[in-house]
């Protein structure tokens, strides 16, 4: 009934070849079950798809190192509907008895999942949702994150804004968790360095009618504007900001999601926008170049941030399985193995903090010719403060 994916077959082929090498070892005949809880329809559908592709790609590449274990994927569409999240998580936990549950994209769904999965006999790996609480007050030994906390990408931007000479800044985002946490992180570093937030605008989610706010920004005339928007809202905001003639007069700064997966739709309006994020497509390292090439070959479209995060999740699972020689039945040992993994990611290698959030580099990027070009390293091996985590 569940989608047993093609990859299972491919993995099997890989194993029969590898089997010669590991001949002495009796492989556990049961597959490792990876539950995938991502949105495949609706606004977040594209993100879910990319994440899944990345995840599968990583596990496929490392199929030979899993000590004969097969991987079975069980995919569930969350529809980005938080109220359904507990039920789906419950089905992966109790019905499918998944060893790993990968998901979600949306922070609200993450809350619903954590409620069910916290301290349970499975490993939850968050490949995107940035909600601080997941590796803060709600942190748990069996919850990991391969993406970022909301705090991480925005925090370094405060310092950079000051370096560039901006003293008075307006911050703006949707009035929801991810946005508010991003603004708070920016404010934290910006204000501690002596900057002043002249106004904080919270737009009701998911409203995309920005005209009135932009008019207000034009009247206040700050040194710069720091925003958090993503997806469709980011497209609309960047275009409106440009059309109102503000871009050339008031520099636009943002958390990286502002120009992630949206550049094509934003067109020339995005040129010159500076953002901070833990990844950039043209990042110059061999892993990234190989990853982007292989992804293009495998899936016939360019990779993106979400694919990288999914890929790293796959790498993490593969490395833990490898470290434990295929036997993942002891949860304590499995958690230990995951905690100590160093993921050699296209974004650069990263390790995990005590709260199970990546300790990673954050890059300053600027949009040039429709690409997020890396300007410099904004923060090196940045660790989320994990406020409220008692682990």
């Amino acid at each position, binding site marked *: 009934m569940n989608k047993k994916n093609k990859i299972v077959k491919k993995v099997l082929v890989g194993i029969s070849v590898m089997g010669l090498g590991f001949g002495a070892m009796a492989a556990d005949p049961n597959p490792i079950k990876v539950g995938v809880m991502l949105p495949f329809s609706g606004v977040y559908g594209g993100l879910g798809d990319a994440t899944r592709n990345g995840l599968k790609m990583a596990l496929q590449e490392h199929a030979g190192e899993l000590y004969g274990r097969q991987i079975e994927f069980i995919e569930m569409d969350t529809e980005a509907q938080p109220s359904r999240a507990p039920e789906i998580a419950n089905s992966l936990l109790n019905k499918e008895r998944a060893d790993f549950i990968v998901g979600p994209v949306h922070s609200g769904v993450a809350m619903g999942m954590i409620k069910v999965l916290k301290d349970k006999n499975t490993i939850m790996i968050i490949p995107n949702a940035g909600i601080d609480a997941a590796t803060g007050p709600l942190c748990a030994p069996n919850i990991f994150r391969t993406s970022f906390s909301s705090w991480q990408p925005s925090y370094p931007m405060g310092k950079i804004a000051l370096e560039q000479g901006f003293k008075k800044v307006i911050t703006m985002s949707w009035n929801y968790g991810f946005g508010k946490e991003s603004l708070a992180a920016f404010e934290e570093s910006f204000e501690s360095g002596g900057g002043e937030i002249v106004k904080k605008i919270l737009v009701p989610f998911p409203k995309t009618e920005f005209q009135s*706010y932009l008019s207000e920004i034009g009247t206040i005339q700050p040194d710069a504007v720091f925003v958090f928007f993503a997806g469709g809202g980011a497209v609309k905001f960047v275009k409106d900001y440009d059309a109102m003639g503000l871009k050339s007069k008031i520099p636009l700064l943002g958390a990286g999601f502002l120009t992630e997966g949206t550049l094509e739709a934003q067109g020339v309006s995005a040129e010159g926008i500076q953002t901070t994020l833990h990844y950039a497509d043209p990042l110059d390292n061999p892993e990234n170049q190989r990853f982007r090439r292989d992804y293009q070959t495998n899936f016939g479209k360019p990779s993106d941030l979400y694919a990288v995060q999914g890929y790293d999740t796959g790498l993490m699972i593969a490395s833990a399985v490898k470290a434990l020689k295929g036997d993942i039945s002891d949860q304590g040992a499995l958690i230990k193995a995951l905690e100590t993994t160093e993921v050699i990611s296209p974004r650069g290698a990263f390790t995990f903090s005590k709260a199970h959030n990546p300790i990673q580099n954050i890059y300053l990027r600027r949009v040039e010719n429709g690409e997020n070009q890396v300007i410099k390293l904004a923060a090196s091996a940045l660790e989320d403060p994990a406020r409220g985590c008692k682990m």
Partner: protein
Amino acid sequence: MDSTLFIVQLINGIQYGLVLFLIASGLTLVFGVMGILNLAHGSMYMVGAYLAWYFVQHTGSFALSAFISAVIALCIGVVVERTLIRQLYRRNHLDQVLLTIGMIFVFNALQSLLWGNDPLGVEVPEALAASIPLTGIIEYPVYRIFVAVFCIVVAAAMYYVINKTRLGMLIRAGESNREMVECLGVDISRLYTIVFAIGVMLAAVAGVVAAPISSIVPGMGEHILISCFVVVVIGGMGSIKGAFVGALLVGLVDTFASVLVPELSSMMIYVFMAFVLLLKPQGLFSS
């Protein structure tokens, strides 16, 4: 709020209101003439935006894309009316709600199948890409002014068609008395097909026109649909004039609420609607 900002916000509000009118007019027209509540109206708006994006990719011309999209929308309207909506004339509102909810599901699925889920954007056509300086720092995009003018032209055209032409006469007659129109020897089912197709086309054209100043994303239809509901309920169901006034009011309330009570701004249009209904349960311009 100083006076310049006030004027800028006034322009913003009116401009937003005019776009709302363009979308809501089809909804209210279809309801007024046919008594059909089309929840899938927002999906038509979405379809329009996606079609515009698709054809701009292929033809490179915004005007041509707009034309092709409008024609396709018209055809969708005819097909949907002939196959589905036709069955509903003698049914109650509940069946209409359910059928059109089903249509939303189908349109959303088709959108995802055909065009994927990534946010898309259409560039503003070159000829309208400029901006006019408004205050020292704010410029106003020409395209938005074009959209406003376009909406006014559509409103005027609708006014003309409804009040001065034979089709308009039939539409007005159909609103007040279905049997009478039938007695006049008019093929009412053809009239309905035409009206429904025009309604769909208006929604799609609104999607096309809005495409360059919005992001084209899955679910964009449902979000706008609810705003349209507020517009037509305030204006009075079935009244084009009401939709016009309602749209402008909603545009202004929304814009000023965003500035004055930002935390509650998304609720304000609903509060405003409740207030209007308290005074006039049938809306401002009900027949």
